[in-house]
C-alpha cells in the first residue's frame, strides 16, 4: 500500500485536532451531522449541495458563513421581512435535503469531484471517459 503514509497523516490530523476543536463546542448546539461527507455540519448552510439552510449566527455576526451568500441588493431587501408560504419547490427541497445521505452511493468512487455534469465527456467506440 503506497498510500499508507498519506492515510496515516490524515488520521493523525483528524485525531490531533479533536481537543482544540472540542473546546469550542457548546452544549446547546445541534448535533453534528455530516451525511454528504464534506466534513461540514449539514445543519449549516451549504450552497454547493444545492440546499439553502438558514444559519444560526447570520444575524448576530452580520456576515454569512464563509461569505458565500453575496446579496448585492441586501440594503433594499433587508427593510421588511415577509414570511411567504412555501411553494412546491421549497417543500421538495426540504424533503430532498433529508435524502442527502441516500441519494447516491460510492460504487463509482474515483470520478472527478469537480464535474457538475456528464456533458462534455469524451467518447470513443461508444465508451465515454
Amino acid at each position, binding site marked *: 500500500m503506497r498510500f499508507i503514509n*498519506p*492515510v496515516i497523516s*490524515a*488520521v493523525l490530523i*483528524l485525531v490531533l*485536532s*479533536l481537543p482544540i*476543536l*472540542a473546546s469550542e*463546542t457548546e452544549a446547546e448546539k445541534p*448535533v*453534528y*451531522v*455530516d*451525511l454528504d*461527507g*464534506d*466534513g*461540514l*455540519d449539514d445543519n449549516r448552510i451549504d*450552497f*454547493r449541495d444545492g440546499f439553502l439552510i438558514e444559519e444560526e449566527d447570520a444575524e448576530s455576526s452580520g456576515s454569512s458563513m*464563509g*461569505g*458565500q*451568500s*453575496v*446579496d*448585492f*441588493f441586501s440594503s*433594499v431587501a433587508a427593510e421588511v421581512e415577509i414570511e411567504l408560504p412555501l*411553494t*412546491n*419547490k421549497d417543500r*421538495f427541497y426540504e*424533503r*430532498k435535503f*433529508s*435524502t442527502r*445521505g*441516500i*441519494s447516491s*452511493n*460510492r*460504487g463509482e*468512487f*474515483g470520478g*472527478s469531484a*469537480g*464535474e457538475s*455534469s456528464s*456533458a*462534455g465527456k*469524451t*467518447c*470513443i*467506440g*461508444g*465508451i465515454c*471517459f
Partner: protein
Amino acid sequence: MMRIVLSVFLTVCILASAAAAGVADYLEIEAKARAKRVGNLFKNWDEVSDNLGMLGLTARVYPVSIMELSVVTEYTAYRHNSSLSNLLYQFNATAVPTSQDSRFTMYFTGGYKGNSYKDIEAETGASKNDFSSKNYNATVSMGYDISPTLRARLGYTVKVTAYPDIKDTVLVPALMNDTEWVMIPLEVLVPMVPDRHDHELSIGANASFLDQTSFDLEVGYRFGQHSHMVDWWWRIPLGQPYSINRIGRDTAYTSQIESNLQWYYVSPRISRAMGDRTGISCTYHYRKFLDPCEHSYVFGSTTGLISPWASVYEGDGVQLSFKTYLIKGLTISGSWGYWEKTFLTTLEAINPMTGELDADLTTNSIKEGRGDRDDIERRLNLTVLLPITTHTDLYMEPSLILDYSNNHSTIAVYDYTDFTITTEFKIKF
C-alpha cells in the same frame, strides 16, 4: 446543426413562456455556459487535446411537493474534434414521499440520457455511431435515523447503457430446390457494441461522534452481464493473417461470450469539521471481483473496438478532500486521490516486440497482445465557486475547476497525464 439550434431555441422559448405565465413557484430554470481546455481527451498515450464549449438549459418542474421532473438539454462543441460535438438530452423524475421530519426516508429517481452527435458521416465518412449511447437508470433507496447520531441506509440502482444497432449483410443458407442449398444475403440489424446492464445494491451506516466527527461505512455489491472474448480467439492457426481491423465491428462484437461479472466494495469514510467553515474527509475504497471469467479478455482502445468493460477494475484507492468557506464569497473545495487498479485482461494492438502500435494484428500477436493491466492513478482537483444570490431569488454561480491526473500502467497505452481547466457560469431562477 440547424436541427440542433432550432431545438434549443424552441426549448428556450417554451421555458421563457412558462416562466412568464406565472408558474415560477412550480418551475426552476437553470442555464449554464462552460468553456473547457482538456489536455488528454481519450486518457491515453495519444495525448489529444482540445478546447470545447458547452451551452446548457435545465427546467425543473414541481407538480407536487414530493416530486421533481427535470429536462436537460446541453450542446457541446469541440474545436478540433468536431465529430465529438453533440447534443445531450436528459429526462429525470425524482420523488421523496417521506417528510423531512420523519425518521424514515425514501428516495426514488429514474431517468433517461441520450446523445445526438453531429452528423459528419456524409462529410468525412466517419460514423457518428462510434460515439452514441443511450443510458437508463433507476434508483430506490431508504434511510432510517436510529438515533440523532446514527443512521442506516439501503439502496438499489439499475443502470443500462445501450449502444445503437447497425445494418449489416449476412449470408444465410436457403433451400433452392429439394437437394440444393444456396447462400443468400440478408440485411440484419446487429448490435454495434454489447449493451451493459448493471445492478447495484448498497448498505451503509453513518455515525457522528467526538463532537464534530463523522464516520460512514458503505458496503456494496454489483452485478451485470459481461461480454468478452475467450481463448478460442487465438486458437486460429498461427501465421494466418487475422487483422482486427479486417474483422469488422459486427463480427468482433457478436462473436463474444456472455457471462456474469460481480464485484463488491467496502468504503469507509471519516470526516470532520475544522472549525465552522472548513471540513475535511478521508475516504477509502476497496473493490474486488467475485468470479472473473478465467482466460477472458476485452478489447482495449488501440484495437479500435474498445469494450464497455475496458474501464472495469478491482483494487483500492484513497481520497483526501477539503471544503472551505474561509474566504468570503468563495466556496473552495479540493481533493487528492490515489488509486491502484487492476483491470480486466485487455487486448491491445501493440507489437509485443517493439511495444509500438500495430494495427495489423496477427493471431500470434493477439495472443501476446493480451496483457494484465495494472494502473496507478494520482489525481488532484481544485474547485472554486462564487455563489451569488439576490433578493429576487436569482442565483448565479461562476466557477473554476482545475483537474490534474497522472496514470502509470503496465500497458504503455495508458501511461498519460492530463491537465484540464474548466470555467463555468450558471444562472438559476
